């Protein structure tokens, strides 16, 4: 039982990482219909910004984290304005968006490599110490990561469901043309969504830089995980479902690694994906106007 509780706690730690990256991609995909394969690189940019500020320049951790999120957000805006907006204007098909995202991702990886090299790097955690709750042990910093993830998602939820901007976002997600006709600045709102989504990925990268090792290629796994979660929950899902999807995926990984074998953890995630594609190809939930998952 002790082992199981610890594994569930391990899953919670993993879920907090997945959720932050996934909700960013969910926002971009829901509002703009863009499968952004460079999303993981926003995570990487956030992580390396954190490294540069904290380790190389000696800036305190928390202001650096804000800067990491802002940098990723700014980069997301640049990407949206220079690449994806133009593709949309030319009415490019889905494959063009996929290839563009992949290409931008590779460019960003190589840019980071040329600046930071290929050796693994690390950022020291700002908080040390362990917390023991019965049989469960967790570092203080990981609890902070979970808390920041939950607060970020809650803030996003408030923005999406309670604010005027959120109303516009949801209008754009439901029907772009109608949103434009009703006077919503679809371009501005779309850019805002991209900025927020990328900023969340950058925040995740900055936060997790202190629990991981950094190389320019760490963005691939978060991208993959985010897309798997998106497919599982389906288009039109609410934010809470994305949260649940992240938790389910993290728990499946942790429990598989703990009770079957670590080598099976990734396979388990893809088995889950196949099950969903076969059983619920439209995802776990399907909104009234949701389009089928096209990934």
């Amino acid at each position, binding site marked *: 039982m*002790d*082992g199981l509780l*610890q*594994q569930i706690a*391990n*899953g919670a*730690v*993993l879920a907090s990482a997945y959720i932050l990256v996934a909700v960013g991609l969910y926002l971009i995909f829901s509002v703009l219909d863009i499968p952004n394969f460079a999303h993981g690189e926003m995570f990487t940019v956030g992580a390396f910004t954190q490294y540069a500020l904290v380790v190389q320049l000696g800036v305190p951790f928390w202001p650096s984290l804000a800067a990491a999120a802002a940098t990723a957000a700014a980069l997301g805006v640049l990407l949206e304005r220079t690449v994806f907006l133009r593709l949309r204007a030319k009415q490019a098909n889905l494959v063009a968006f996929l290839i563009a995202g992949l290409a931008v991702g590779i460019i960003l990886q190589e840019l980071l490599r040329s600046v930071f*090299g*290929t*050796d*693994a*790097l*690390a*950022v*020291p*955690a700002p908080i*040390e110490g*362990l917390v023991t709750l019965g049989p469960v*042990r*967790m*570092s203080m910093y*990981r609890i902070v990561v979970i808390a920041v993830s939950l607060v970020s998602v809650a803030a996003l939820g408030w923005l999406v469901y309670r604010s005027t901007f959120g109303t516009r976002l949801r209008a754009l997600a439901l029907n772009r043309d109608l949103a434009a006709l009703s006077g919503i600045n679809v371009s501005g709102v779309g850019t805002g969504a991209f900025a927020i989504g990328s900023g969340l990925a950058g925040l995740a990268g900055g936060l997790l830089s202190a*629990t*991981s*090792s950094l*190389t320019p*290629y*760490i963005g691939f*796994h978060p991208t993959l995980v985010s897309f798997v979660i998106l497919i599982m929950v389906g288009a039109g899902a609410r934010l809470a479902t994305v949260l649940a999807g992240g938790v389910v995926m993290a728990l499946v*990984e*942790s*429990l*598989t*690694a*703990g*009770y079957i*074998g*670590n*080598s099976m*953890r990734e396979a388990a995630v893809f088995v889950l994906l196949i099950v969903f594609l076969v059983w619920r190809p439209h995802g776990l939930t399907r909104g009234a106007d949701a389009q089928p998952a096209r990934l």
Partner: protein
Amino acid sequence: MLNLRTLITCAALCAPIVTMAPAGALAQGAAESLPVAVLLPRSGPSADSFGGSMLAGLNFVFDAVNAAGGVKAADGKSYKIALKTFDDPLTDVKIAQTAAQRALDEKYRIIIGPVGSGSASAVQPQMARSDAFWLLAPSVVPGPTKLPNVFRAAPLLKVYNEAVLDWLKMNPDVKTVAMATDQTHTGLVAATGELVSGIEGLGRKVVATESFRQGDKDFRAMLTSMLQKRPDLYLHRGFAPEAALSLEQIRELGGQMPVMWNSAVTAAEVRKLVPNENLMANVVQAATGQSLDPFLGAGMELAKKVKDAVGDKAGTFTATGHDAAVVLVEILKRTKSMDKAAISAAAESLPASALEGKTLNTFSPHDDGLVFKAHEVNVPGTLMTWQLGKGWVASR
């Protein structure tokens, strides 16, 4: 009496002799250029840590040899080593095969590498068909050295296993071992069965054998499962970033047992990847002498000289590169011609005494006093313990 016509005629006859004389003198001492290829990562995740560090060691030796006039071979000629790198980023064996083929297409007949075991296995058919002499380092996969033209200038993976077993013999209170192995490291995976047998042969028990992949970041689930079995030792077999992360996570989960790394993690990598040095208490490294660390720790003058020369380029494989270059130079000194058969014959008969004082690792002689037996060298592993505030210190 000389007239102008005779003078001009004499000058015309003498001019070639006068101009060719210094050329002749130069030709007698001038070294030929000897192209040597090296397959190692110059791009990808291992470019700096593996490729750059190994190249630093190779260049240190070759630059010194060239500055001294080149290698004087048994054919009476002097050769200056012209080293060219071919990129094998260790991410896909097809790229390794392409790099090897490029080196062969450019007519390189002496090739150092590949670095990675997976690459060496993939390139083995090309080695067999080629007219080149191959010197492997530090790849540990056993197959290629069965070929007549392939030799290895670095120890086999069994040396890692031997170092682990030596440590266990020194620590009889360690009864149970949990181990995790990087599945992307072909050599480590191949040596796992032998290691488990060796541990059990000492009367100890292997309570868990798990696997992970290079690039994994979260080991908590795997480590939680291992800790349930209360091992006396956690043995991590893989590369530096994953070793550092698993150490941090096992300590976080309450595992205070000794942690052993079967990785050649340098002190510089530890300081970068483990910001909280206190986590390094009770960490041992059982590896081979791939980096300069064990030799600097032992106060070796040669190691200090190499470190001063290469500076920040020193890393994971600097000692490996240095020693491979020294071995190659000594082989070439004894080569009667620069074809693979002659170079291989020179390698076969290379005495261990030729390397004394020149290499960082100790190349112990085989029974016949030679460096190579079945194309493999006899180099012992290293056991190091991390001392807080100091770094790696030799345990034996």
